[in-house]
Every structure is written in C-alpha cells, then in structure tokens.
C-alpha cells in the first residue's frame, strides 16, 4: 500500500487535470482546496482497474471537506456549509 501522505486537518488541493477514462474525482471539484476530514483506508486504484490492470499498490482514499462557497461561485447558502468528497491520494497535493 502507498503511504498516506496527508493527515486529518491538512489542507489539500485537488489536481486540475482532465485525463480520459473512468475518473472518480468529480469534474466540479478539480482545482478546489479543502481539508482532509479522515483517511478512509486504501483501495486498488479504480482508474487502473477500469483499464483491466490490478490497480496496485492500493491508493489511500481521503474524505476531503470543502466549503460550498469555495466550489460554487454563486453559492447562496450559509458560508459555513460544507461538502465532503472522497478523493484518492494521487489526485491531491499540499495546499
């Protein structure tokens, strides 16, 4: 298993990348900055599994918490509203 690079509470930025294939990182969250809420474990990389490879070593998966107002420019709800997205480690960099 790949070592977990981030700890809960750390700020991370989602890669603003647009590779082809089966991608588990939603389009709308790419490029956004959030905070690691928890480490969910490690799992074979689904992007690799989708290409008929083994997806090993398992990639750490994080639940990352974002402020809604940082995602949607016209967000009209409370400024403290959050959205949590589960994102694999290879999509994250330190922020």
């Amino acid at each position, binding site marked *: 298993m790949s070592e977990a690079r981030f700890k809960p509470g750390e700020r991370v930025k989602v890669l603003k990348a647009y590779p082809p294939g*089966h991608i588990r990182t939603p389009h709308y969250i790419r490029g956004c900055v959030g905070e690691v809420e928890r480490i969910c474990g490690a799992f074979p990389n689904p992007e690799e*599994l989708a290409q008929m490879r083994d997806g090993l070593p398992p990639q750490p998966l994080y639940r990352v918490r974002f402020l809604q107002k940082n995602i949607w420019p016209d967000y009209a709800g409370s400024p403290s509203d959050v959205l949590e997205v589960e994102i694999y480690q290879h999509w994250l960099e330190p922020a």
Partner: protein
Amino acid sequence: MIGRRHHDMGGQPGAKVEPLEHDYADWERRIDAMAVLLWGQKGTRKLFSVDEHRNAIESLPPAAYDSMAYYEKWIVALSQCMVQRGVVTGEELARKMQDVLFMRQHHDMGGRPAGKVEPTEHDYEEWERRVDALSVLLGSRKILTVDERRRAIESLPPDAYDAMSYYERWTAALAQTLIQRGVITVEELARKMNERS
C-alpha cells in the same frame, strides 16, 4: 504620426500576396453563416451590426490579429459583440469554454443545471434484476471489474447515454466489457443479435 490601426494595412510593406483559392472547412462556413444571420441580413433577428463585428475584429491586439486565421478573428469578434450587446456575459462564455477545453465527461453532471430530482421508488423489471445480478456475479468471478463497467457506461456517446435507461446502459456496458476481456467477440454478439431480430 496619426495612429494607423493595425488591420489597416494598405500600402504598408508586407509579404507577397499569394492569390490561392482554398476550400473552407466546415467550422469556417459555419462561422460565416452564423455571423450573417446574427447581422440580421437574412430577415433574421439582428443581434449586432456588421460594422460592430468589423470594429471588434479591428480592435484585436496586433499580436492576436496576426496570429489568428481569418475566421478565428470572426469568431472571437462575434463573441465580443455578443458580450457587448449583453446577449451573453463574459463569465458565461468563459465557463462554457472551460467545459469544452477541460473536457467534462458527459456523465459527470455534478453541479450542472438539471431538472428537479423526483425521489420516487419503482419496481425493477425482471430483465433489470437479471442484468444487475449477472454484472455483479461476473465481477465476483473476476471476469471483469465494476470499474470497467463504469468506464464503459461513461464512454457511451452523450446522445446514447441520455436516450438509454439506467439498466440499458448497464447492458451496453456489460457487452462492451465482455468484448474487451475477450469473453465474447463483436462478431459473435452481432450474429446472435441478428438471429433474434
């Protein structure tokens, strides 16, 4: 010297003009047609004038003017006119262009405008249960993975994706992954489907 606008090149030193004819590409024809229609010259609703359009072309920064093809200037100027006239906003345009540049896959709809979601339960049809069961069992037998099926679903052309029901997509994806894995061939599938038609 009184400022000559960059586009106004008459009498200026320039490279030899090669009077070559060339066929127009589809995108060039389309921009030309769109512009003429938006000028209101075919009895269409006029959104801006041909002169506004020309002015927008002539207002391009010299470096941009020189680096763009003829119809690239037209399309940039056309969008500029629409922004100036308030037909679209600059922000809307930038967002839409991002969608194209940063290829959003059609299925990846989070945050997009969509109709109201109606949270109603419904019974599954027999064939839907069967497709679900088969797909999951083929996964547990390691014949294919759920991720391959998802990829196949997400690779459906947008019009097919929209036209199909949920389990129709699963069925199409199942066939596609079985072909990729070499469990069945395209020809075998085509022949069997033909026998049933």
